[in-house]
């Protein structure tokens, strides 16, 4: 069975019971993606599939044959860390770091959703085609990623710097980073 993980073709046989998370960690050796609850409650296992964020623990790997999977290992490039990774360091967006790979992948998928105008639970006007990336919007959209160290404020600060509406102001990068997946 063929998978495309971080732009690399991988051919491997799998038991249909294998989750995408276990395929990544146990068969391919990409242990950056973390197993937190393994039941869809914590978001630690979030990866991007064709640019969309999903939970790899609830995903049967067989359903993702041939799709483009991006994990935390695929975020940095030759030039260095992804801007969001740098911002997490800058803003203390973690303590133990266990939820961080999921937070990063989730935030990148979330930014793409915001950019294309997907509303959220806190969006006032559903008909608006452009949605302001307020702190409230960012926090709501990141609610599927728990941080038991309580670094949520630093996490949202980091996401706000890179994807929030203050982007472009003093001390903030002007450019939305290119979509990674």
């Amino acid at each position, binding site marked *: 069975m063929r998978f495309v993980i971080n732009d690399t073709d991988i051919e491997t046989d799998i038991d249909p*019971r294998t989750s995408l998370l276990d395929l990544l960690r146990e068969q391919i050796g990409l242990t950056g993606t973390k197993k937190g609850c393994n*039941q869809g409650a914590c978001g630690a296992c979030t990866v991007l599939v064709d640019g969309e*964020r999903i939970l790899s623990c609830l995903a049967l790997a067989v359903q993702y044959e041939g799709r483009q999977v991006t994990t935390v290992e695929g975020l940095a490039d030759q030039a260095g860390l992804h801007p969001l990774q740098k911002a997490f360091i800058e803003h203390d967006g973690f303590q133990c770091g266990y939820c961080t790979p999921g937070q990063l992948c989730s935030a990148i998928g979330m930014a793409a959703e915001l950019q294309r105008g997907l509303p959220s639970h806190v969006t006032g006007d*559903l008909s608006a085609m452009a949605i302001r990336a307020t702190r409230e919007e960012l*926090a709501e959209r990141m609610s599927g990623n728990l941080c038991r160290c309580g670094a949520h404020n630093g996490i949202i600060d980091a996401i706000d710097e890179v994807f929030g509406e203050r982007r472009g102001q003093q001390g903030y990068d002007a450019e939305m980073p290119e979509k990674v997946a």
Partner: protein
Amino acid sequence: MTPFSFARATDADDALRLASARGGRYLGGGTNLVDLMRETIERPTALIDVTGLSSTIGERDDGGLLIGAAVRNTAVAEHAAVRARYPALARAILSGASGQIRNMATVGGNILQRTRCAYFYDNAGSRCNKRNPGEGCDAIEGFNRMHAILGASPSCVATHPSDMCVALAAFDATAHLLGADGERRLPLTELHHLPNGRPDDETLLKPGELITAVELPAERWFARSTYRKVRDRASYAFALISVAAALKIDGDRISDVRLALGGVAHKPWRAHKAEAALRGAPATAEHFRDAARAELAGAVPLSHNGFKIELAERTIVAVLQELAGEIA
């Protein structure tokens, strides 16, 4: 997880063929079924992946919308016609689960997620009539704060956790089904049934029958609709109470209304009694309260969820006031 075979259906007929040959279960995004399989509560011997089936949202000639069963939850909430004409549906979906889960979950899978509670999941330690029919229910005398106040039976007090289905129930949505005997249609309000003596059996679907689409009727006034969810934290939690409502006012009178409740029953609860009390009545808080009380008169609290009755009443009144204010 017990072993199973896996096959990908190319179309609805193929799915039916595969299901009848293998006796399997249909698989959407897997967000509920895979989780239950990991706990060995669900033990299908074959899975038929139906995520390749219809994933389009189409306008019907009569002005209604036809949503393919394989459309992801995110795509429904994002669709311009859903946002403009059925806002309660977009809001209901956006208040459910998390961004990641909404990207995975399909419309068909959301409808057919199991009605469940923590005791259903507690495979090793609790009795559950839904898991093992006839063994008893530990929720009734247990920690039942999240459980049902309407339509429950001594066999089961779990609630159906879908937000999407509450809005679909309010909007008179119809499920399109395909089975061995051909196509048929079932109102969403009738697709799930109350527990009665067999809470393990949750829907009127026949073995092997597949949901192919959900149809929303062309009622222009559904554009005045909303969904409110009350929960223990601001996001990513099941409903204690939720309300989907649409309101039509002519002059100062309510000419039509749709009202459905979530978090209260074994199925999405269409509030027919409250609707009957509201039709023709003045659109005032007093009448909203009377209607809510008419619906909740039959509510039966458990040891830890008595608060839900007043919470439901207040939420119904608040949602109807919000809609009436929008119109005024």
